[in-house]
């Protein structure tokens, strides 16, 4: 790890300085902990202390995103190799993840052979199951038919579903279908109605983890980094004490806390994209070869029962 967050948090309050540092360095291996909706940043020297106090957590899973199998442009000419490195990183975790979430853009061009390669590489992940949601690159040409047949079996509508693990309610949403001219990501009426019903019977103390490809908060609408009807979806989750939203799409780590909701985006395993507004477009960012693996990686997520805590460790492939 090249960079550290300087410890500067208090036990009970929100530490704004630490939070901003966490935002800035999350991509290089920061350790961010969310307790009761409050995000805290820890210096890496304190990770051991935190782990000793809290244990590894009751539920440990990994998020990967944006594999873009088939992409072969200068930003990364071997995305299969970097996905394999991400798999090696998952398999080297001290606690094997209960499952893996892939938050979309499995492929670059929705080609059958790209889905084949993705499937083959992920077969070697040491975990019980991989859950997927599609990215816009997985539903080209056929509105996601191929994706649904191979990776969304049993899901509703365009590929949305929910499941429960250790008392946590997980919801996989699809916001990459039927996009409208001039707009952002879209969930659509059918999915919103399903979501409202899906959480209806749950106790407000149930921790909720939502995952979807395009961010469900306005990261940077100018680049299409947001979802038009996400506010409607989040309104159904208002009564819950702890809501975490995990997204991909923007190929970099970002976090935001808004009331009871914590938003987090993961790195890509394929290529980085520029920070909002720092380039003419959100196209693939070409960095020096030795820097690439410091900008790609996985997110290791730990949930601690009863404490409403979610700890996310973003680990680059290298550095």
């Amino acid at each position, binding site marked *: 790890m090249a960079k550290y967050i300087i410890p500067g948090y208090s036990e009970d309050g929100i530490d704004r300085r630490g939070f901003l540092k966490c935002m800035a360095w999350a991509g290089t291996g920061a350790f961010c902990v969310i307790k009761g909706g409050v995000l805290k940043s820890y210096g890496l020297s304190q990770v051991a202390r935190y782990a000793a106090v809290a244990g590894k957590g009751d539920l440990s899973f990994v998020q990967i995103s944006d594999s873009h199998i088939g992409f072969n*442009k200068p930003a990364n000419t071997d995305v299969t190799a970097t996905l394999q490195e991400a798999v090696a990183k998952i398999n080297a975790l001290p606690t094997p993840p209960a499952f893996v979430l892939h938050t979309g853009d499995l492929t670059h*061009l*929705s080609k059958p052979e790209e889905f084949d390669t993705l499937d083959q590489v992920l077969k070697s992940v040491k975990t019980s199951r991989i859950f997927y949601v599609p990215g816009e690159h997985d539903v*080209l*040409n056929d509105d996601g038919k191929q994706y649904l047949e191979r990776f969304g079996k049993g899901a509703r509508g365009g590929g949305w579903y929910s499941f429960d693990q250790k008392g946590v309610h997980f919801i996989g949403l699809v916001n990459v279908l039927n*996009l409208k001219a*001039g707009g952002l990501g879209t969930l659509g009426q059918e999915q919103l109605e399903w979501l409202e019903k899906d959480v209806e019977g749950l106790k407000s103390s149930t921790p909720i983890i939502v995952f979807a490809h395009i961010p469900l908060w306005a990261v940077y609408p100018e680049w*299409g980094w947001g979802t038009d009807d996400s506010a409607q979806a989040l309104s159904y989750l208002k009564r819950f004490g702890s809501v975490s939203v995990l997204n991909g799409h923007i190929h970099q780590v970002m976090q935001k806390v808004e009331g009871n909701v914590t938003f987090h985006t993961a790195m890509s395993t394929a290529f980085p994209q520029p920070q909002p507004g720092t380039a003419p*477009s959100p196209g693939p960012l070409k960095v020096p070869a030795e820097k690439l693996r410091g900008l790609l990686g996985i997110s290791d997520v730990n949930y601690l029962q009863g404490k409403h805590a979610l700890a996310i460790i973003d680990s680059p492939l290298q550095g």
Partner: protein
Amino acid sequence: MRDLLTFSSVALAAMLLLVFGLSAATYRRPAAGPPEDLNDKYRVTIDNFSFTPASLTVPAGTTVTWVNRDDVPHTVVSTEKKFKSPVLDTDEQFSYKFTDPGAYEYFCSIHPKMTGKVVVQ
């Protein structure tokens, strides 16, 4: 035997000429489509997630060609479902002939923030 040899030589020479001539013709032939100047005039390029020009005015009967010069795939889809390109990877292009006057708005169905317009007079 001598006749056969002669015939073979002639045939070989003819074949060589044919192959060489064909490849030379292929090499010289310009890209399919309208002549260069027309092609440029009615071409929309896709760079940095935008259509350039964003609005293009053409006479009725014009074939407009879109070329994707980005590192990521894009599409050209009519907002009113009048035309729809396949997914265009880097350097791939799509052409559509506009026969009727009117304003045709379109967007990229993968990155819907990208919009453009063709006005047919």
